[in-house]
């Protein structure tokens, strides 16, 4: 849900172009401070985790149009600098299957890496405080998803005036005649605002569906973390004594 599933051409050019520029800048800064040897060594792991995220994203939970991202668990395993590249790669591949437009790859990378990076940071922070794996993994995932969903809503909100422009573009000279309908039903301006963007309704729908998604993903990530801790505790790089 924190993913922007908008197709190409809906967001204004300045918005998606800024997304690309900021993503490139962050990527450049992150790689400047990452050792090349370490990066080469972790490339196959990055590929595998990105592939796992792509597969996770293809499993759709139909009633709430939700799919797991596995972004937090990938963030915990890959660490912040690599999760950014992994997120970019995942978004490119998902866009190639129509899962979000190609022009929104930059914005998707930014919002989804918020999930991965903050998931990692929250996991480390709460581990230091609580030292209990189950609540730590759940809270870290829930908060990270919450943050990235709000950032996605913020991004969509930045384009409101553009959506209004798209909606009103056709009035009076399109293939379907809306003007006649308006004259018939709205002689005194009763339907004022009907043609305007209803961003509050969008936020209400996204947040109510997302809340279920945060809980679902929180539970799944927690169970995966526990599974990994049972079989390969070295991957989580935690001190012994987790419960």
């Amino acid at each position, binding site marked *: 849900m924190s993913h922007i*599933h*908008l*197709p*190409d*051409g*809906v967001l204004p*050019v300045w918005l998606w172009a800024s997304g690309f520029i900021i993503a490139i800048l962050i990527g450049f800064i992150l790689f400047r401070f990452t050792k090349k040897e370490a*990066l*080469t*060594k972790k*490339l*196959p*792991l*990055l*590929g*595998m985790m*990105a*592939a*796992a995220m*792509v*597969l996770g994203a*293809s499993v759709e939970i139909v009633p709430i*149009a939700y799919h*797991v991202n*596995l972004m937090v668990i990938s963030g915990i395993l890959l660490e912040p600098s690599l999760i950014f*590249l992994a997120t*970019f*790669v995942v978004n490119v*591949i998902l*866009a*190639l*299957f*129509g*899962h*979000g*437009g*190609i*022009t929104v790859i930059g914005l998707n990378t930014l919002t989804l890496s918020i999930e991965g990076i903050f998931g990692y940071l929250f996991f480390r922070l709460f581990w230091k405080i609580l030292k209990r794996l189950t609540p730590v993994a759940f809270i870290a995932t829930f908060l990270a998803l919450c943050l990235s969903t709000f950032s996605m809503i913020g991004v969509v909100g930045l384009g409101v005036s553009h*959506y209004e422009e*798209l*909606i009103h*573009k056709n009035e009076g000279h399109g*293939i*379907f005649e*809306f003007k006649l309908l308006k004259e018939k039903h709205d002689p005194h301006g009763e339907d004022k605002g*009907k043609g305007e*963007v*209803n961003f509050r*309704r*969008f936020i209400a729908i996204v947040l109510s569906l997302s809340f279920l998604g945060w809980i679902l993903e929180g*539970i*799944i990530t*927690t*169970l*995966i973390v526990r*599974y*990994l801790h049972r*079989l*390969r505790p070295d*991957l989580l790089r935690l001190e012994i004594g987790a419960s």
Partner: protein
Amino acid sequence: MIQLSYLDYLSIEGRSFLHRLGPGWKIIGMLMVLSGIVLLRNLFGLFSLYGILLAFFFICRLPLRIFFLTLYPLIFTVLFIFISGFQLHFILLVFLKALSGSTGVVLLLATTPYPLIFRTLGRFLPSLLVTALFLTYRSIFILLKVLEETQHALYLRGGFQWKHPWRSLHNISNAFGHLIIKGIDASEKMYESMMLRGFKNKIHYRGE
């Protein structure tokens, strides 16, 4: 995602004029489709663009089975109907943009083998990024194989049942956990074999 291997098969085995066209030209074509999607704001223009892409789809005799892949983005686009207050023009505009984008992309993938796409991208993008893309694409096939095997184990443990949500979540999480561990093992082996073959941050394609 299961259709990925079928798309791969089509891109190699197909004999249409789009299959024979150079990957560079097809990527330029895809960029033109994207520009059209971004710039066009009237339904006639978008209908025409979608019509042209559909014509290409059927002229290339691509099977109907993959046509349904082009409809996939509509699942997500539905959510954005609510933002417009159900304005028909906006809904059609967004749907046509989504369909044009996905049809263009499916046309590209079904007529161009992915190593050729990555080789062409490698001329413009940083080698690290293209290598990561290539490894991810390859890893999807490895994980799909693991997933296929895991599905049997999942089924024997009760699979996914709405009647038992907690057990189902447990099963799904264990399957993903298993997938991640197998993936990490495979990535370690992949790294060793790549180093033995002299890998240095760049994958070289046949003909380079």
